[in-house]
């Protein structure tokens, strides 16, 4: 029942969800084409990612596409905000949007169990998004240390203090990777 309603209102929910997210980025009257993958990659990733997430929720599935979409969006967020709570708020917004859409149907036979399942599905996505955020932040620190090593490795090598085992050229990345 609840998923039938969501299927019917999928386009409305998706549009509202995408619009609020893109408003955060591209404010004012400036209209940016969100279908241009290269001209506007942030808008493209958000629009496409939101669509995938909503479709999988509505279809009650959880495929690798959903994980990829979630990762792509949270990756972008991880560079913009310091706190995980702010990186995952787009999923809370979806929850609110769905609840608003279902409000008038609440008395029309939506069971508590169905509602609970839907909320659980979104909550699980929020937890996954937290994990992805942390993974991205760790990646940033890893990149920082890699850059540092790359900058100083030749210096150490020339000073002949690179450690006991002589390395082959091209192995530097493997060893630190």
């Amino acid at each position: 029942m609840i998923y039938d309603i969501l299927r019917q209102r999928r386009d409305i929910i998706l549009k509202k969800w995408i619009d609020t997210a893109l408003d955060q980025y591209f404010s004012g009257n400036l209209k940016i084409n969100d279908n241009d993958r290269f001209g506007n990659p942030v808008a493209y990733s958000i629009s496409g990612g939101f669509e995938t997430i909503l479709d999988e929720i509505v279809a009650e599935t959880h495929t690798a596409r959903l994980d990829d979409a979630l990762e792509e969006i949270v990756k972008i967020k991880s560079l913009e905000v310091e706190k995980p709570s702010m990186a995952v708020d787009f999923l809370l917004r979806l929850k609110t949007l769905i609840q608003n859409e279902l409000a008038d149907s609440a008395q029309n036979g939506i069971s508590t169990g169905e509602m609970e399942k839907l909320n659980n599905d979104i909550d699980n996505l929020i937890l996954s998004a937290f994990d992805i955020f942390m993974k991205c932040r760790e990646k940033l620190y890893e990149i920082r240390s890699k850059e540092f090593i790359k900058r100083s490795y030749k210096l150490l090598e020339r000073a002949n203090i690179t450690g006991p085992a002589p390395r082959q050229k091209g192995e530097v990345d493997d060893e630190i990777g």
Partner: protein
Amino acid sequence: MSDEKLKSDQVADIDYNPPVKGWMDTKPAFRKGIFNYPAVVASEKYLDLPFSRKWDPREDDWKLPENWKEIVLETLKDLLKKYRSFKVFMDICVRCGACADKCHFYLGSGDPKNMPVLRAELLRSVYRNDFTTAGKLFGKLAGARELTEDVIKEWFLYFYQCTECRRCSVFCPYGIDTAEITMMGREILNRLGLGIDWIVTPAANCFRTGNHLGIQPHGFKDSVDFAVDDLVDAIGIRVEAPINKKGAEVLFVVPSADYFGDPHYFGFLGYLALFHEIGLDYTFSTFASEGGNFGLFHSAEMIKRLNAKIYAEARRLGVKWIIGGECGHMWRVLHQYMDTMNGPADFLEEPVSPITGTKFENARSTKMVHVAEFTADLIKHNKVKLDRSRNDHWIVTYHDSCNTARGMGILDEPRYILEKTCNYFYDMPENTIREQTFCCGSGSGIGTDENLEMRLRGGFPRGSAVKYVREKHGVNLLTCMCAIDKATLPAVMDFWVPGVEVAGVHEMVGNALVMKGEKRSGDLRGQPFKGEEVKEHV
């Protein structure tokens, strides 16, 4: 983005609307990860820069000189008088917005002040207020605003969030070059002692030793000797790499990262192998040991100071002409400023390739030829033997570096070289390459550790295009011709498209080059050629 803490009862009730305040009333927020650290005092003093002091962008008091306002307005007045283009750019923008979505920082961050039009407006609003009648009479209505300390802070944040890549200027119907506006903004900031360390310290090193890293002559020789030794391991030939050789035909100037950085170094080995194979009579210089010029990111005067060594060394060594290595901003200076700043180079000859006889008429005035032009010409005339299959372990794409592409129009030569040295070369989509190329997000002196998050945001459009060719063709190598690209694109790839490595164009040349007397089974990185992996284990 806000830095405020969310309270538990607010979590489901977030305000998603953009701030209601206009841009003039929105103060800059300095969050760690998106701004650059100030210059260290010692470097500023070495260069005799004004008002050197310790200060922190996150603190309220930036310890500006007492008469800072006077300095800003006087400098602005000077710059408007000195540069006609700047004056025109201040007046003619109609705010059509054509540039707005062309900046990689705007596309990657969504911050409206990263729209080129608004970045320029940060300065233009002060210009209107103090230099135009309309601004003086109508103030905010005419787009004018008063110069305050917050305005200076905003300039510091956003003029160091512009890589001077000039993509926006390609789309501006009036040809307004936001890079020039950024350069003016930085000139003003530097007069207040508001430089960043990643620019000022390399500039100080360069002024002292000739290169950004501060490598002294004996250190430079060590580095080149080290590369010669490495090349023996890689190709089985000991090449000559002359340094300060008087009377050589050609002076070869490279960015210092070439003989120090990874992956630049493998391209450096490629140059050495190539010049050996064709028997080029060339020399390095221990003082012109850096083609890069961080003065470009500081002020016109600093460009001139750091660039002077190139013609001076060409004269001292008595060469006929100059070849320059793979670098981006280095070429912006050599191509557009060197001739008028430190020329004329009338003591040099018009460059002619001693191997093919080709006259490089485009370099008639500067007497300096890009190594990609030189190599493409060699290949075109069949003067080198190449085995493309030696790069078969790479599926290659090419990132046009902003300065060589938009700044000097080298678009086809690198592609020609790559097509002749690699079997698998695939360009990225049209609106992300050539004149429309996306920046690496780290140019113009902002490729710092502390600015990593902003760099990755700016690198997202490029990452997105690489991801596309990776998905479509399995691309695993992003080639480029810029030292800053080579230093910073690995991080962009690592974050956005893991599995793609970065290399210079001449690394591909060095791999494919079939040399007389060579002994090799692997590429310049020491990796086996495709098909040789099994033999190694036999």
